[in-house]
């Protein structure tokens, strides 16, 4: 009985105790649940209250991206509105190396869809070496609509490859203006540092290009414009979803030049296949009408990075197409120096115009025989004749009498030996020899014998065609010298406001009118009855000029210069300086034709064609032939 009564009792107690124990454990798990949910709540509170500001900032940074909008670069126009540099819209195919995976394979596959030349590949490889992995680099430029359509179809196969609509810079006049207008190119590291230093880097966000040479470089600030800003909302893939705010870019200003494109072309073509340079200046204000350096090069090659092969061709060519001969090439001025020497003689009162010098065909100094190349000695020569027929002996003796330092002091005023300050970079200063210069340059004293050949523009003398043109313009303008400038005015295309590049009179040389008259008359005589008379025989205008010959190699004592015996590149350079019309000059120019011998034969005909076009509007039928 007891067992019967106890057993169920125990069983009930047991299961009751089991249930209590279970409920106890369940309560513990309930506490566990509350604790962990409490922990979660604390975590949420920490993130959403304490750290809310921090995470909001991060979310905004995720969300908002500030995109620069590159401005349109200003165009460059000649004085008559002819386009020399402009922009056009086209597509490029660009690869971002960091996102593209195997580059070679990507390019090979792209080549099955759009044409990719070996030149494109070489250029891309070169860009790749110069750039960072995450920059987007063009593999092909100027794609046709059809190519773009084909790429769009296969787009999904090419991660990291994008077709971008972009503005391209183009130089429609090509090599004719290569040294004046210059070109733009991709911004390099050095330029980034420079921009940073001058505080202009922010304005170049979104710009891939910067002016590298010529006007593109020197007027970079005016041409570039102001970069706009677009605040966009982006998704995690960096794609813009919508625009939040927009500050439009301000287009760059246009440049309108003093340069006459047609004149420039006439001058460039007039050289034929000779190398050389020509600078034409309006003497009344220093405006540069033409600035030619031949051969030129196609500046369009440089815009998207030149491929190594084309670069080597240009850079290694003996013709030096990359050298701007007009502003950076220096040559002895030869006999074109004589009118300036004559002015120096008058200025110092060393010689009167009427004073006659005997020219026996040579000048002996210190046992050295300074020759005059012509077969028959000139005999008695006054100042006028010395210029018209280009007597050497007259100027040997004059130089000797003046002495090197007075010569240098006088020539300095014409700008010889110093940069003209023209508005493109890369100008050479040339060499205006003096005792001080020689001491500085060679740490040697000046020998009196060295002065003799300076008198006829040889010796240490070395000037740029630009300096000679500027000096000629100064004579033409009666001694008032202007800084040569290519740009006439900068035009704000929005307001139409024109900011002229003011003609800046550098100095008034205060030359006496009667002195000037002697030299100017003599220069008219050169074209009438002198060394270049034949070239200007039928000219309906009066031009005042001077021929010159710059020696490339020294001729030994007792030897005669025979052109046919000298290697082509060692032949003399032909010079010609001229201004016209003589009584009221509107153009002054200097021409050098390299290795072309006597100045009147090669350089003067080039000048004639340029003057004919400028003064008469006459287009030449063919390149100027050597007289």
């Amino acid at each position, binding site marked *: 009985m007891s067992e019967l009564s106890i057993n169920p009792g125990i069983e009930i107690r047991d299961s009751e105790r089991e249930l209590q124990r279970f409920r106890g*454990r369940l309560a513990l798990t309930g506490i566990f649940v509350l604790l962990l*949910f409490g922990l979660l709540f604390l*975590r949420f509170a920490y*993130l*959403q209250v304490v750290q809310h500001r921090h995470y909001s900032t991060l979310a905004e940074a995720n969300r908002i991206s500030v995109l620069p909008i590159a401005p349109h670069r200003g165009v460059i126009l000649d004085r008559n509105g002819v386009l020399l540099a402009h922009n056009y819209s086209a597509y490029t195919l660009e690869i971002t190396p960091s996102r593209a995976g195997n580059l070679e394979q990507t390019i090979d596959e792209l080549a099955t869809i759009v044409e990719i030349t070996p030149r494109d590949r070489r250029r891309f490889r070169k860009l790749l070496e110069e750039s960072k992995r995450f920059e987007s680099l063009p593999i092909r430029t100027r794609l046709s609509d059809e190519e773009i359509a084909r790429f769009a179809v296969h787009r999904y196969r090419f991660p990291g490859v994008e077709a971008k609509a972009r503005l391209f810079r183009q130089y429609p006049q090509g090599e004719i203006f290569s040294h004046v207008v210059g070109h733009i190119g991709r911004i390099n590291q050095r330029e980034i540092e420079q921009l940073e230093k001058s505080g202009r880097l922010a304005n170049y966000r979104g710009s891939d290009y910067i002016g590298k040479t010529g006007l593109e470089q020197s007027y970079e600030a005016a041409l570039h414009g102001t970069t706009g800003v677009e605040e966009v909302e982006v*998704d995690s893939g960096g794609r813009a979803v919508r625009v939040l705010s927009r500050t439009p870019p301000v287009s760059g200003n246009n440049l309108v030049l003093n340069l006459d494109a047609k004149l420039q072309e006439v001058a460039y073509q007039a050289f034929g296949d000779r190398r050389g340079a020509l600078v034409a200046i309006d003497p009344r204000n220093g405006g540069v009408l033409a600035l030619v350096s031949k051969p030129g090069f196609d500046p369009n090659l440089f815009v998207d990075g030149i491929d190594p092969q084309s670069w080597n061709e240009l850079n290694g060519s003996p013709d030096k197409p990359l050298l701007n001969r007009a502003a950076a090439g220096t040559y002895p001025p030869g006999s074109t120096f004589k009118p300036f020497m004559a002015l120096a003689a008058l200025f110092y009162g060393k010689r009167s115009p009427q004073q006659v010098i005997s020219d026996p065909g040579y000048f002996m100094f210190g046992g050295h025989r300074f020759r005059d190349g012509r077969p028959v000695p000139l005999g008695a020569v006054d100042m006028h004749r010395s210029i018209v027929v280009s007597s050497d002996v007259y100027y040997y003796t004059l130089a000797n009498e003046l002495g090197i330092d007075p010569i240098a002091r006088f020539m300095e005023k014409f700008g010889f030996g110093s940069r003209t300050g023209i508005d493109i970079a890369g100008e050479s200063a040339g060499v205006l020899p003096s005792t001080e210069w020689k001491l500085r340059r060679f740490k040697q004293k000046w020998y009196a014998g060295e002065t003799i050949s300076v008198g006829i523009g040889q010796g240490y003398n070395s000037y740029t065609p630009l300096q000679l043109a500027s000096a000629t313009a100064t004579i033409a303008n009666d001694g008032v010298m202007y800084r040569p400038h290519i740009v006439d005015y900068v035009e704000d295309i929005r307001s139409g406001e024109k900011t002229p590049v003011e003609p800046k009179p550098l100095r008034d040389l205060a030359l006496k009118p009667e002195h000037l008259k002697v030299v100017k008359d003599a220069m008219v005589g050169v074209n009438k009855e002198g060394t270049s008379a034949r070239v200007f025989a039928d000219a309906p205008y009066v031009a005042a000029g001077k021929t010159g010959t710059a020696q490339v190699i020294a001729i030994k004592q007792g030897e005669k210069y025979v052109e046919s015996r000298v290697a082509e590149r060692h032949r003399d350079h032909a010079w010609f300086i001229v201004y016209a019309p003589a009584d009221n000059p509107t153009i002054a120019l200097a021409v050098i034709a390299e290795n072309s011998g006597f100045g009147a034969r090669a350089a003067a005909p080039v000048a004639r064609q340029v003057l004919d076009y400028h003064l008469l509007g006459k287009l030449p039928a063919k390149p100027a032939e050597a007289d």
Partner: protein
Amino acid sequence: MPFVLRRLLVLLTRHIDGVLLSAILLLMFTGLLTLFSAANGSFGRLSDQLINMMVALGVMWAFANIPPHYLMRMAVPLFLTGCALLVGVALFGEIVNGARRWLNIGITRIQPSELMKIALPLMLAWYFNRNEASLKLRNYVIAAVMLAVPAALIMRQPDLGTALLISASGGYLIFLAGLPWRIIIALAAAAAAGMPLLWSLMHDYQRQRVLTLLDPGSDPLGAGYHTIQSTIAVGSGGVLGKGWMNGTQTHLDFIPERTTDFIFAVYAEEFGLLGNAALLGLYLFLIGRAMVITANAPTLFARLLAGSITLTFFTYAFVNMGMVSGILPVVGVPLPLVSYGGTSLVSICLGFGILMSINTHKKLVQT
């Protein structure tokens, strides 16, 4: 109301627990709301998920109507089938995304680990119930082995998340079955000591997840990206949230997996701390109700099964929200009843169906 209709209604709702159902429906509604925003206002996923919900509620209703002792009979065959299938997966399974989780049984592919989620608690509950009268240490050891075999097989697939969740469901059950405290303490000590061993057994990507949790910034574009972006979403939500459909992280595609495992980031960004508190409250309410059902369950089998289901549900919610807010590693665990996806929805509703069955069949058992 006509008699037939009233009778039908009673028949339909007899085994449904109104309190549980209303909490479940509220959570599902929250899920749909968030999903709509996460899917950028498209109805495609929304209608898919609605169908999933219907199916899941149907399964719940069906299981609510199955008396617990039927389930008890299914325990052993289900468990053995599950184990056999897991071995099958290990031997012949198909590899998807680097893990061998699927088994092709001719008609369709199945993921046996899903089956194990319900089969293991059933089996353990059945086992403890059978030995209720004389529970000895030996029984706990055998239970632990029954837990360890499928857990190890799933971990080898590898599927760390599911393995841990299944272990947790079994662990809760063994704890509720009265595992002695001295063993618990000893196990805790052993676990602490065994950490390095566990580390050495982990796959590289699993280690990476743990390391990334400790310092998400170490790999901001790789493994840490999920955590960083979801943490930003939660934090930038603030107290009030950015408003429904206004989450920038969500709508600009910064939150990965935002309709499934990371849907809580969307919710927290748009509804803020207040919304999070409400959601936690809703979960607590549901868990609380389930615990009351558990506490009042008539048999040990029912109690243990209900407790395991309840606590596993809690674990899903905790692990998911902990992962999204950056205090737990990224494991593939959905937010229960909220995340998009049919499988998890069905298995969770199935569990609640069992809870309802336990709650509504006890009178029959007692009488």
